[in-house]
C-alpha cells in the first residue's frame, strides 16, 4: 500500500504533464508547425479506443472467458480494413461540409435536421454514460487498490469525476475553434496511448517473465489445473458460443466508427486523408500489442489468487502489489489513469460539442424571446454551454456508476454503450451509400433502436441494481412473459448483448428502410443525400438561395467566432475576390464549423432574406437538386447528342458527295451529248473545206447533215439550260388562265407535219367545253409537243395511230396521249423520266431526242401542281397522261 498523498501527487503530476504536452502542441499549432500532422500521431490518437476497459477489463474478461475478450479487438481490426472505402468517404464528406460531430454528420445528411441532431445527441449522451461510469469505476477502484480509500471524503469516484471535468474543460474549451480542432488534446491523447501501452507491456512482461518463466510456463500450469484447463480451448469459457462472438465482433466494428470520441479523433481531428493509409495497419498493430499479455496476466492472476477473493478486473494492479512491486504498481496505475482520462476527455469534449451545437443552440436560437440572434458576442455563451455540458455529463456518469456500476463487470458496462452507439450505424452508413434514406426513416430507426436498447439493456441494468423491481426481469413488465426484457417475444437462450443487438437492429433497420421507402425525400434532403453519397463525384455544395448584405453576414459570424476571426475570414474572402452572392454559403460553412450545420442553417435564416419561393422557383429548386443527380446523366446525353450531330454531319456530307457525283455525271453526260453532233459538224465542214471538187450531190448531203446536227446541238443546249433553270428555280413562268382545249388544238395543228411525215394519224377527242386552268401556256405547249413528237417517233410508219383526249375529273383536267407503238417495259417506265434516259430506239432509226424531254415535261407539270405518268405494256402501245388542277372558281366560270 502506497501513501495516499504520494499517489495523489503523482496522479496530479501526470495530469500536469499531459497538460504541458497539450499546451506545447497548441503553441506549435498556433505557430503553424503542427505536431499532430503525422500519420503516427493520428494512429496513436485512434488508440483512445483502448480505455480502462481494455486496461483492466480485458484481463477480467479473459479470467472469466479465456479468449472471449478478443472480439472487441477483432472487430476494429476487421473494420479498419474497410476504412479506405467507408471512412475515407466520411472524412471527405465531413471536411467538405465542416462537420463538427457525429450528430452534426447525421443531421446534415438528412436535410440539416435540427430534430435529428438532437435525437442523436440524446442517444449518444445516454448511451455513453455507462461507458463513462466504467472509467470512473476503474480509476477509483485502481486508486483504492493502490492507495486505499480517500480519508476525508471517501467517495473516490466523485472526486475523480470532478477532477476529470475540470481537466477536460481546461483541455477542450479554452477557446472556440471554428473547425473544432483540438490539437493539444490530440497530442495529449497520443501521448497517453503510448503511456498506457508501455505500462501494460511492463506489467505483462513482469508477470510473464518475472512471476513465471515465460508464456509456456503459464499455459502449462493452467493446463495442469483441472478448473482452469477448459479456458485454453478456442472459444472456451462460459459465454463462448459463436453467435455472441459474431455479435461482439459486429458491435465493436460499429463502435470503432460511431463512438463519439472515435468519430472525434478519426474524422473531426483528422488533418490529412492520407493518414488513413498508415492508420489502417498501425492501429491493428497497436491492438495486437496491447492484447499480447492479456491472457498471461489473467492466468497468472487466477493461478496466484486461486480462491477468487480478488476481482479479476484488478489483476494488473493486485499482482505487482502482492509481490511488493510498488513502483510497477504505480506505473500500472498511471497507465490505467491514462486510459481512463484519455477516453473521458475526448468523449466528453465530443459529447459537449454535440450537446451545444445540436441540442442547446438550436433550441436557444429558436427561442425568440431570448433575442439571441441579436446579441453581439456569443462565443462566451458557447463556451459556457460546453463547459456546463462537460460537468453535467461527468456527473451523470457518476450517477450511473452509483446506480448501476456495481452490478456489472467493466466489460459488460462498456458493451451496453457499444450497443447504444451501434444504433447510429444504419442512419450513418445508409446515409453515405444510399440516396433513398430519408429524415423520417433515420429518426424512426434511431428512436426505435434506442427504445429497444433502453428496454433490453438499460432497464435491466437498473433492475439488477435493485432500482427497479427484479421481477421486471424475471417475469416481464406486469407479468407479461412475452415482454421479458432479456427474452423479448420468447427469444431466449442468447446472451444479453446478442439478444439486445438482434432486436434493436431489427427495429432500427426496419424503421429506417421501411419509412425511407414509404416516402420520397424532400428537396433539401435530396440535395444533401447527393452531396454525401456522391461526394467523390462532384465536390462542393450548391449555393443557398437568397440574399444578405456582407455587413449582416459579418455580424453573424463575429457573434460566434469573435471579431478577430470574423475579420480574418472576411479579409480572406475579399483577397480571393469572392462574389457577394457566395458569401452566404461560405459564412454558413464557417458557422457550421462552430455551431454545427443545423444551427448554422437556423442562424443564417435570421439574416438571409430567403426569396419567397414562387411555384416556379420551387420547381427550380427541385430541378437543382435533381440536377446534381442528373449531372453525369447529362454528360452522357451531351456525348450522345454530339454523336448524333456527327452522324447527321456525316449523312449530310454523304448527301453532298452524292449531289456532287450527280452533278459531275450530269456535266459528263452533257459534254458527251454535245460532242457527238460536234463530231459530225467538225468533220464534215473540214471535209467540205478540204475537198472543193466534191460532187454537188455529196456536198448537199454533207451540208444537210451539218444543218441537222447543228439544229440538234442548239436544241440540246436549249434543253440543258431549261433543265438547269427548272432545277434551280430560276425558270420564268408566265401564268394565265388558259383553255386547254384550245391549246391542244393549236399544238395538234402545229405538229401535224410530223405525223404526216410518218404517215401516222392523230386523233383528238375533246369535250365541247372545259373549265380553265391557270398555267404557263408556252410550257404546256412544250409538254404537249414533247409527248406528241415522242408518240409520232415511236409508232410504226404507215400504221401509226395517236390519240389525244381531254377530260375533266375531280378538281383537275386530265390529258391522255396514247399510241399504238411498241410500248415501254415495266422496268423502263420510271427510268424514262430520268435525265438522259431513253427506253430504246424507235423503229424509224435512232431516237433523236436528247433524253431530257420527259424529264423537263414532268417538272413542268409538277410545277403546275399536276402529275405526269405513263401506262404501258410492252407490245401494246403507251399512254402518257398528265393532270392540271382547275383554277379557283374556274369550274363555275366555264
Amino acid at each position: 500500500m502506497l501513501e495516499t498523498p504520494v499517489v495523489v501527487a503523482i496522479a496530479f503530476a501526470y495530469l500536469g504533464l499531459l497538460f504541458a504536452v497539450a499546451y506545447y502542441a497548441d503553441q506549435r499549432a498556433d505557430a503553424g508547425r503542427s505536431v499532430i500532422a503525422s500519420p503516427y500521431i493520428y494512429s496513436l490518437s485512434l488508440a483512445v479506443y483502448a480505455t480502462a476497459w481494455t486496461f483492466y477489463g480485458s484481463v477480467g474478461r479473459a479470467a472469466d472467458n479465456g479468449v472471449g475478450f478478443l472480439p472487441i479487438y477483432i472487430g476494429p481490426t476487421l473494420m479498419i480494413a474497410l476504412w479506405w472505402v467507408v471512412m475515407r468517404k466520411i472524412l471527405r464528406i465531413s471536411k467538405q461540409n465542416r462537420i463538427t460531430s457525429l450528430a452534426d454528420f447525421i443531421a446534415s445528411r438528412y436535410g440539416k435536421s435540427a430534430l435529428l441532431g438532437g435525437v442523436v445527441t440524446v442517444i449518444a449522451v445516454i448511451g455513453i454514460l455507462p461507458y463513462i461510469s466504467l472509467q470512473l469505476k476503474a480509476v477509483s477502484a485502481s486508486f483504492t487498490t493502490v492507495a486505499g480509500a480517500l480519508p476525508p471524503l471517501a467517495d473516490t469516484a466523485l472526486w475523480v469525476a470532478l477532477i476529470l471535468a475540470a481537466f477536460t474543460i481546461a483541455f477542450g474549451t479554452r477557446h472556440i475553434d471554428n473547425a473544432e480542432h483540438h490539437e493539444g488534446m490530440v497530442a495529449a491523447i497520443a501521448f497517453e496511448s503510448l503511456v498506457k501501452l508501455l505500462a501494460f507491456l511492463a506489467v505483462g512482461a513482469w508477470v510473464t517473465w518475472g512471476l513465471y518463466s515465460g508464456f509456456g510456463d503459464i499455459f502449462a500450469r493452467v493446463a495442469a489445473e483441472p478448473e482452469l484447463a477448459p479456458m485454453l480451448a478456442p472459444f472456451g469459457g462460459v459465454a463462448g458460443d459463436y453467435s455472441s462472438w459474431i455479435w461482439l465482433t459486429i458491435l465493436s466494428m460499429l463502435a470503432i466508427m460511431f463512438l463519439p470520441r472515435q468519430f472525434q479523433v478519426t474524422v473531426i481531428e483528422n488533418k490529412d486523408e492520407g493518414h488513413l493509409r498508415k492508420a489502417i495497419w498501425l492501429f491493428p498493430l497497436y491492438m495486437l500489442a496491447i492484447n499480447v499479455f492479456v491472457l498471461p496476466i489473467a492466468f497468472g492472476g487466477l493461478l496466484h489468487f486461486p480462491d477468487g477473493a480478488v476481482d479479476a478486473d484488478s489483476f494488473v494492479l493486485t499482482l505487482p502489489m502482492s509481490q511488493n512491486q510498488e513502483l510497477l504498481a504505480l506505473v500500472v496505475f498511471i497507465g490505467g489513469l491514462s486510459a481512463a482520462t484519455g477516453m473521458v476527455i475526448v468523449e466528453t469534449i465530443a459529447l459537449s460539442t454535440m450537446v451545444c451545437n445540436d441540442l442547446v443552440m438550436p433550441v436557444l436560437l429558436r427561442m425568440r424571446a431570448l433575442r439571441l440572434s441579436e446579441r453581439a458576442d456569443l462565443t462566451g455563451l458557447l463556451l459556457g454551454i460546453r463547459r456546463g455540458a462537460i460537468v453535467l455529463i461527468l456527473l451523470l456518469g457518476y450517477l450511473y456508476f452509483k446506480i448501476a456500476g456495481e452490478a456489472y463487470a467493466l466489460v459488460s458496462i462498456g458493451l451496453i454503450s457499444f450497443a447504444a452507439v451501434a444504433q447510429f450505424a444504419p442512419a450513418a452508413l445508409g446515409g453515405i451509400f444510399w440516396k433513398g434514406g430519408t429524415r423520417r426513416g433515420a429518426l424512426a430507426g434511431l428512436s426505435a433502436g434506442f427504445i429497444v436498447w433502453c428496454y433490453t439493456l438499460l432497464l435491466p441494468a437498473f433492475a439488477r441494481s435493485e432500482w427497479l423491481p427484479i421481477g421486471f426481469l424475471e417475469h416481464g413488465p406486469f407479468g407479461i412473459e412475452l415482454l421479458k426484457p432479456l427474452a423479448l417475444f420468447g427469444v431466449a437462450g442468447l446472451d444479453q448483448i446478442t439478444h439486445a443487438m438482434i432486436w434493436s437492429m431489427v427495429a432500427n433497420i426496419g424503421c429506417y428502410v421501411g419509412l425511407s421507402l414509404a416516402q420520397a425525400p424532400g428537396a433539401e434532403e435530396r440535395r444533401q443525400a447527393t452531396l454525401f453519397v456522391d461526394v467523390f463525384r462532384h465536390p462542393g455544395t450548391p449555393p443557398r438561395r437568397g440574399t444578405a448584405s456582407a455587413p449582416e453576414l459579418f455580424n453573424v459570424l463575429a457573434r460566434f467566432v469573435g471579431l478577430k476571426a470574423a475579420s480574418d475570414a472576411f479579409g480572406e474572402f475579399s483577397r480571393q475576390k469572392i462574389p457577394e452572392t457566395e458569401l452566404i454559403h461560405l459564412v454558413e460553412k464557417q458557422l457550421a464549423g462552430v455551431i454545427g450545420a443545423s444551427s448554422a442553417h437556423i442562424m443564417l435564416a435570421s439574416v438571409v432574406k430567403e426569396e419567397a419561393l414562387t411555384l416556379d422557383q420551387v420547381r427550380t429548386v427541385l430541378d437543382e437538386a435533381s440536377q446534381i443527380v442528373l449531372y453525369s446523366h447529362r454528360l452522357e446525353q451531351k456525348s450522345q447528342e454530339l454523336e448524333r450531330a456527327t452522324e447527321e454531319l456525316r449523312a449530310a456530307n454523304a448527301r453532298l458527295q452524292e449531289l456532287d457525283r450527280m452533278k459531275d455525271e450530269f456535266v459528263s453526260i452533257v459534254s458527251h451529248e454535245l460532242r457527238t453532233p460536234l463530231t459530225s459538224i467538225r468533220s464534215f465542214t473540214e471535209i467540205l473545206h478540204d475537198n472543193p471538187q466534191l460532187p454537188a450531190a455529196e456536198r448537199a448531203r454533207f451540208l444537210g447533215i451539218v444543218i441537222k446536227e447543228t439544229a440538234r446541238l442548239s436544241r440540246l443546249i436549249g434543253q440543258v439550260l431549261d433543265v438547269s433553270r427548272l432545277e434551280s428555280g430560276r425558270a420564268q413562268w408566265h401564268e394565265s388562265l388558259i383553255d386547254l382545249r384550245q391549246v391542244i388544238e393549236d399544238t395538234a395543228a402545229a405538229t401535224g407535219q410530223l405525223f404526216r411525215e410518218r404517215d401516222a394519224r392523230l386523233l383528238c377527242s375533246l369535250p365541247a367545253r372545259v373549265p380553265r386552268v391557270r398555267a404557263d401556256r408556252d410550257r404546256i405547249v412544250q409538254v404537249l409537243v414533247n409527248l406528241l413528237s415522242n408518240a409520232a417517233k415511236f409508232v410504226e410508219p404507215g400504221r401509226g395511230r395517236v390519240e389525244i383526249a381531254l377530260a375533266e375529273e375531280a378538281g383537275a383536267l386530265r390529258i391522255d396521249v396514247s399510241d399504238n407503238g411498241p410500248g415501254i417495259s415495266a422496268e423502263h417506265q420510271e427510268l424514262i423520266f430520268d435525265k438522259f434516259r431513253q427506253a430504246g430506239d424507235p423503229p424509224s432509226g435512232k431516237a433523236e431526242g436528247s433524253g431530257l424531254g420527259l424529264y423537263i415535261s414532268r417538272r413542268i407539270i409538277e410545277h403546275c401542281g399536276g402529275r405526269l405518268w405513263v401506262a404501258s405494256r410492252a407490245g401494246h402501245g403507251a399512254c402518257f397522261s398528265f393532270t392540271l388542277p382547275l383554277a379557283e372558281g374556274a369550274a363555275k366560270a366555264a
Partner: protein
Amino acid sequence: MNQVPTAYVVDDEESIRSLWEWLLASNGIAVRTFGSAAAFIQSYRSGDAGCLVLDVRLPGMSGPELQDYLRREGIGIPIVFMSAHGDVRTAVNAMKGGAVDFIQKPFDYREALAIVRRAFERDVQERSRKARRAQLAERLAALTERERGVLQRIVEGKANKVIAAELDISVKTVEAHRAKVMEKMAVDSVAELVQRIIGFSLMEAPRG
C-alpha cells in the same frame, strides 16, 4: 474468209456512220458500218481482215462489252475505240483490254484515217506472224519422235557425241537424223533452226 481488209465501224450515230463511210471509201479502204454491237457480231466472220472502229457508248452491248466478248471468242481483230467521253479512265481501260488506239470525239478526220491505217498494218503483221507460226507448227508436227528428241538437244547446244550417248544411238545415226530435221524444217543452218524454234517458243509464251 474475206481477204480484203475492211474497216468495221460500230456507232449508234447515223451521221458519224456516214462520215466514216465516205472518209474510208474515198481513201480506198473497204468499210462496213453497224448501228449496234449485235449487228456487227451478226455479220462479222472470224478471221476477216481489217480493224474495228468501236464507239464506247452504245445502246445495248457497249463498246468495252463487245471487246470482252471478242476476246472470249478468240477473235483477234484490232480495235480502235472512239468516245465522246473525254475521261482518261475509259481510254486506259480500253487500252488495257487490248485496244490498239483511242480516238476522242470530235476528231481530226485525217488523224482518224491515219489511226485506222496503222491498225490495218498491225493486223497484217499479226496475220503474218500467225501464218509463220502455223507453218512452223506444221513442220514440227511432221518430225518423228526420235527426230524431235534430236532437235531438242541440238537447240540445247549439245554436240552430236553427247546426243548419241544420251539417246543410246551411234553418232552416225544422230548425223542422219540431224540432216532429216534440217530438211523437214526447211532451214540451211543450225543457227537458223535454233532461231526459228526460239522465236516459236517466245510466241507461245503467254503474253503479259
